[in-house]
């Protein structure tokens, strides 16, 4: 089965981003296809590589990056939500005259069309949020 996943909360606002991660990992573990994971609203905070959580805390951006690398996942961050929250890739940083970028490996910045496409392409769209 082909899945689309929507994540609407950040790692430190609600358990939903953890649930989304565990669900995605379980779906891949069962041999399903994950067409795309779309990070929207505060969910874009899952995509920063500059977070330094304590060693005994889970590091969700790292876990998503590693899952993306293992399974060739498409992790898409909503551009409008990302700009508001200071999540930038190199192109966006340059375009807005910022001195750094912070997007984690495996994530890319794109628009809402990617969410619509995931809704059309996937057999199931599963939403996680607050």
């Amino acid at each position: 089965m082909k899945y689309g996943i929507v994540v609407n909360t950040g790692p430190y606002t609600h358990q939903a981003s953890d649930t989304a991660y565990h669900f995605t990992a379980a779906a891949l573990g069962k041999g399903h296809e994950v067409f795309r994971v779309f990070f929207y609203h505060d969910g874009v905070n899952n995509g920063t590589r500059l977070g330094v959580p304590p060693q005994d805390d889970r590091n969700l951006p790292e876990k998503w990056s590693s899952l993306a690398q293992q399974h060739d996942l498409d992790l898409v961050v909503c551009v409008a939500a990302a700009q508001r929250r200071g999540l930038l890739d190199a192109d966006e940083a340059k375009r807005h005259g910022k001195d750094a970028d912070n997007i984690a490996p495996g994530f890319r910045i794109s628009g809402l069309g990617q969410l619509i496409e995931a809704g059309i392409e996937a057999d199931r769209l599963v939403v996680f949020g607050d």
Partner: protein
Amino acid sequence: MATLHTVNKSPFERNALESCLRFTTPGSSVLLIEDGVVGALRNTRLAPRIAQAMENITFYALGPDIRARGLEESRIIDGIRIVDYAGFVDLTAEHDRVQAWL
């Protein structure tokens, strides 16, 4: 066309579960996750409402979230089935669509 409804709020915090139960149709299912698992406990104000709903819909609760809150599975209402994340995935595949009550 069966729908899997996911509820992630305690029924004592918000009315997501009660709203959900007003829209479920016979043959659909409700999966309680995150703080939603509190709604699966016996002897609460909501338990009779769930018992009534169980006549035509099936209830599930996410085991890892029950245990993460220190709740014993023995305190869960009889008939509510406990699943893990793999079981959650199976439920989404078995139903035609998933509706999250956020």
